[in-house]
């Protein structure tokens, strides 16, 4: 989800053939009895690689996600909103650190992950490649994008890798404030003046498309979901997550008298599943591969921050020796 659904190279599946049969069986048995895998355990290289990629992309999403929201801190309406948004963005950066730390236990150093992000080698959640035009956009992001992330995080917290689960538990505890705050902001606009109502409706119209992309491509075109779910790396399919999100949040959006810009969106009472217009997956692939409105800006800002902070790192006179963290 965080990298766009396709987090595999096809070449990787062959590596599984060369793994020690006995060790692989013991590893899978542990997962099957719901026991967590810890950093010191043997694990197939495919598991290690995919986990690093997934956690890294999740961490990248937190850091980049701070940008469209952070941009509104100085212009948030009123002191309380500024304080709250500042606290939320602080949390997001903290979450990124927790996630990078979890990925590090698998053997990839943090600085390498940060460099890969800036170099454009690793991905982050596509939704942050879109611009936050108005304050209402910031509120919609705080509410719905966080809601989407929480759906995914709550599911993944039951996964197999210990450090990732522990990081997610800490993160989920802090997210409840984000969600409440976001909802509060949207309610304020939706129940406000005609100008406010129009602003939030237009923001919703802009963000609905990206929100439908948020959980990644539909299951029928998502490859390798099966082994990721067997190893409890992926705890729910993209479509499962999407359905859960729609179930929880479409009613909440409708109760604010906001319309969702998809006339086909409705819940099928027989199948109990939401039906909707198929999102534009061509646009999704285009944007995630670099051709979105904000891709260049996001990376440029991260790179600038990294370069401008170099003197601080130099002043700390880093002479330390780094080893892979333990848990």
């Amino acid at each position: 989800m965080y990298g766009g659904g396709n987090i595999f190279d096809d070449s990787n599946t062959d590596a599984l053939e060369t793994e020690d049969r006995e060790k692989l069986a013991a590893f899978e048995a542990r997962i099957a009895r719901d026991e967590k895998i810890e950093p010191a355990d043997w694990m197939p290289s495919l598991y290690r690689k995919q986990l690093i990629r997934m956690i890294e992309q999740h961490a990248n999403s937190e850091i980049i996600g701070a940008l469209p929201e952070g941009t509104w801190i100085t212009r948030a309406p009123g002191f309380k909103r500024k304080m709250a948004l500042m606290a939320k963005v602080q949390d997001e950066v903290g979450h990124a650190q927790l996630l990078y730390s979890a990925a590090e236990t698998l053997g990839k150093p943090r600085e390498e992950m940060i460099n890969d992000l800036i170099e454009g080698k690793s991905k982050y959640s596509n939704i942050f490649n879109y611009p936050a035009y108005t304050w209402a956009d910031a509120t919609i992001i705080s509410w719905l994008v966080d809601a989407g992330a929480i759906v995914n995080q709550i599911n993944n917290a039951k996964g197999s890798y210990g450090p990732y689960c522990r990081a997610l538990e800490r993160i989920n505890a802090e997210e409840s404030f984000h969600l409440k705050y976001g909802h509060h902001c949207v309610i304020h606009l939706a129940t406000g003046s005609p100008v406010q109502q129009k602003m939030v409706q237009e923001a919703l119209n802009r963000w609905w498309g990206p929100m439908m992309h948020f959980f990644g491509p539909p299951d029928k075109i998502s490859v390798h979901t099966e082994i990721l779910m067997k190893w409890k790396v992926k705890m729910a399919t993209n479509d499962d997550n999407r359905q859960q999100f729609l179930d929880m949040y479409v009613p909440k959006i409708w109760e604010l008298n906001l319309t969702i810009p998809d006339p086909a969106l409705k819940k099928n009472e027989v199948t109990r599943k939401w039906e909707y217009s198929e999102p534009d997956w061509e646009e999704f692939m285009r944007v995630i591969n670099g051709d979105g409105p904000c891709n260049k800006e996001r990376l440029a800002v991260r790179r600038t921050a990294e370069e401008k902070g170099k003197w601080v790192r130099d002043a700390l006179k880093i002479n330390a020796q780094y080893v892979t963290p333990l848990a």
Partner: protein
Amino acid sequence: MKSLDPRITRLNISAHAGSGSLQTSPEQLATFEVFLQKRDQMPFEHVGIIHAPDEQMALVLAKEQFSRRSTCSGMMVANTRSVVVSPYTDMEEDVYDHMEMESSEVSEENSPQEYFSIFHLTRRGKQHRCAGTISAKNFEDAFKTAKGTLKEDKPVLNVWLIREKDLFKIHQQDTDIWNTLPEKRHRDVTSYRARQKKDSIKTRS
């Protein structure tokens, strides 16, 4: 590059699409394992790591990362390199029953005793918790002693041993930030109640 955010426009940076080499070299900061005490008298528990150049910075950054939102009563850090880790056991075996600690340390007969903090992991997926302090000559000695004195009712799956002198605790005078933390209401879920506003929509239409 022009951005919706005037501050970014003012930076006058060029749009960057990636795949250019960064000027900065990826120097790694060391990592410190962080242990937190939720309430007075409770044992310290591992909560995660912090990247920092030294122990003082590590404590400052650990406070920010691990008590930014929830208060606690104590915190300490140890460089990851100073943590000695026992083997992991499987299937609810107790590490004390089944394993011998191998230590690269060799102590002389007359070397002084020092204190070691012992941390136990009793369940995969949970975190190491301080089980006590042992006085011993070296890590191997400490493990043997812990076997005798710190055994628990549940099997211990993994043991961390850290020399007391490698553990850096927060000073009492730096703990007052935890007293004012609960006052920061704007981070509280309870500050964002909007039931009345929502209900006003129903009465309107």
